């Protein structure tokens, strides 16, 4: 069987230039959603078609790519996208955050601090933070243009009225560079503080919605809140049972049908690195906790 011959990184050069122009605009106006002519990609919407197009446009032969899905390097989505680029672009891939120059992510920011030499590419399902409050796209665009963001606080108000605290735990709205309100894609709000003043360039691609936006390096990003209900990142009150980390974002894993569960780092690379350097938790059998 003869494999089809692709242009470097799948997309043709004209398309890449078009996407790069959109990216440049996005960087020039932090947080502003730039429309672009999103292409069909050989994967279904919701699998990161936006992120893949952004990655394809910025990646070069010398880049080292890491792809994570909810922090994990070894889920279907992450593995498939890594394979996709190693086949169509022949670039090196890695799972080590420190090594990578381009990191495509679905719904997490790596625990390891990023550097100026890295680019973080987010896969975004719904770029419009006001979508569920104001369904008219013409109206939300006008609201962005005039920075009428009172409505965003109505959502937070509703949270507090209903739950007693701001119950939005992911896709927590932020204001970028004191101007545009932005949906940081469905990252947990635990990750929100990592958005601000980040040395790495952060790009957001929404394929189905045909939007690209960006946070340039060292840009102030503020999570919206009320004076008397300030923003608080959420984290399970536990340690990772594999590496013992007390500062990382944890996944709750159900281990049997009796309600046993364990908490482990959502960022697999962070967890593995810690274990490799001997920071593991007490190496007892997989510690389980029973719910009575």
């Amino acid at each position, binding site marked *: 069987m003869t494999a089809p011959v692709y242009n470097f990184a799948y997309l043709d050069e004209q398309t890449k230039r078009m996407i790069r122009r959109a990216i440049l605009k996005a960087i020039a106006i932090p947080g502003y959603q730039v429309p672009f002519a999103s292409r069909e990609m050989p994967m279904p919407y919701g699998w990161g078609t936006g992120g893949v197009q952004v990655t394809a446009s910025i990646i070069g032969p010398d880049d080292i790519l890491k792809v994570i899905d909810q922090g994990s390097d070894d889920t279907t989505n992450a593995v498939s996208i890594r394979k996709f680029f190693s086949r169509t672009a022949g670039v090196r891939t890695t799972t080590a955050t420190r090594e990578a120059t381009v990191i495509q992510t679905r719904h997490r920011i790596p625990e390891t601090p990023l550097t100026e030499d890295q680019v973080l590419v987010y896969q975004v399902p719904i770029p419009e933070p006001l979508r569920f*409050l104001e369904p008219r796209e013409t109206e939300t665009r006008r609201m962005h243009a*005039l920075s*009428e963001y*009172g*409505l965003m*606080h*109505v959502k937070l*108000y*509703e949270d*507090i*009225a*209903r739950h007693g605290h701001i119950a939005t735990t992911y896709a927590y709205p932020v204001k970028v560079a004191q101007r545009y309100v932005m949906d940081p894609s469905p990252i947990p709000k635990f990750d929100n503080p990592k958005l601000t003043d980040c040395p790495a360039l952060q790009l957001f691609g929404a394929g189905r919605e045909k939007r690209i936006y960006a946070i340039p390096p060292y840009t102030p990003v503020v999570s919206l*809140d*009320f*004076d*008397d*209900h300030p923003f608080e990142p959420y984290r399970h009150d536990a340690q990772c049972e594999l590496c013992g980390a007390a500062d990382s974002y944890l996944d709750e894993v159900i281990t049997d049908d009796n309600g046993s569960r364990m908490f482990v780092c959502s960022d697999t690379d962070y967890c593995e690195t810690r274990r490799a350097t001997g920071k593991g938790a007490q190496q007892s059998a997989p510690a389980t906790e029973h719910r009575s």
Partner: protein
Amino acid sequence: MTGTDERPLLTIDGLTKWYGRQLGCRDVDFDLYEGEVMAVVGESGSGKSTLLQLLSGQMEPSSGCVVYRQRDGSIADVWQMSEPMRRFLFRTDWGYVHQDAQLGLRMGISAGGNVGERLMAVGWRNYAAIRDSAKSWLDRVEIDSNRIDDTPRTYSGGMRQRLQIARNLVTAPRLIFMDEPTGGLDVSVQARLLDLLRRLVADLNIAAVVVTHDLAVARLLSNRIIVMKAGEIIETGLTDQVLDDPSEPYTQLLVSSILPV
């Protein structure tokens, strides 16, 4: 506040709207002073609602101008203002009560959120303060404050209308537009709503333009009245004077066609 300012709050001059070749309204002039309630009456299709939309800056007139005296005393043509200014005015200094409460409310958001939206839009960022303000407004429009977290979907028609009024009045506007505020409500609810409106407007010294086809509403609420027919003002004056002693044949017809109880 310029409480002693004697100049009109709103000056309407030669306001005309054409929908293509179809006339909406023509050459409407009037002044509206602070604390004054003006009723606009006329049959369906006489241009009342067109006029209201022109006045409230929602539709651009074909010719003529709407001049508004702002809080700082400066005078500005609503259609010469920048769009953000106009929208800001609409959210803060003005209110608009729709006939259909569903258009004026966010049906999926709790009553407290509905009332608080305007406050958050002008920069309130203290949850407790917003909630207190919402509570006190629900109280003033006679909605039980226990229902602050219910959505308007669960409210009756009369309550929705009152909620809509609270939502508009929370930023202490100086001018409020009402399009058939009692339309579609049953008579006892209407009476209660009218009572409430009259009290609020008097207490807060709000100027209002009320469009209605119900002369009883005009009589109860308004100081002055405009009678419209085929897009033009045919008679204007003090409400009691016009309704008791109409001079135009059309107004006479209108007054005499009220069904006696």
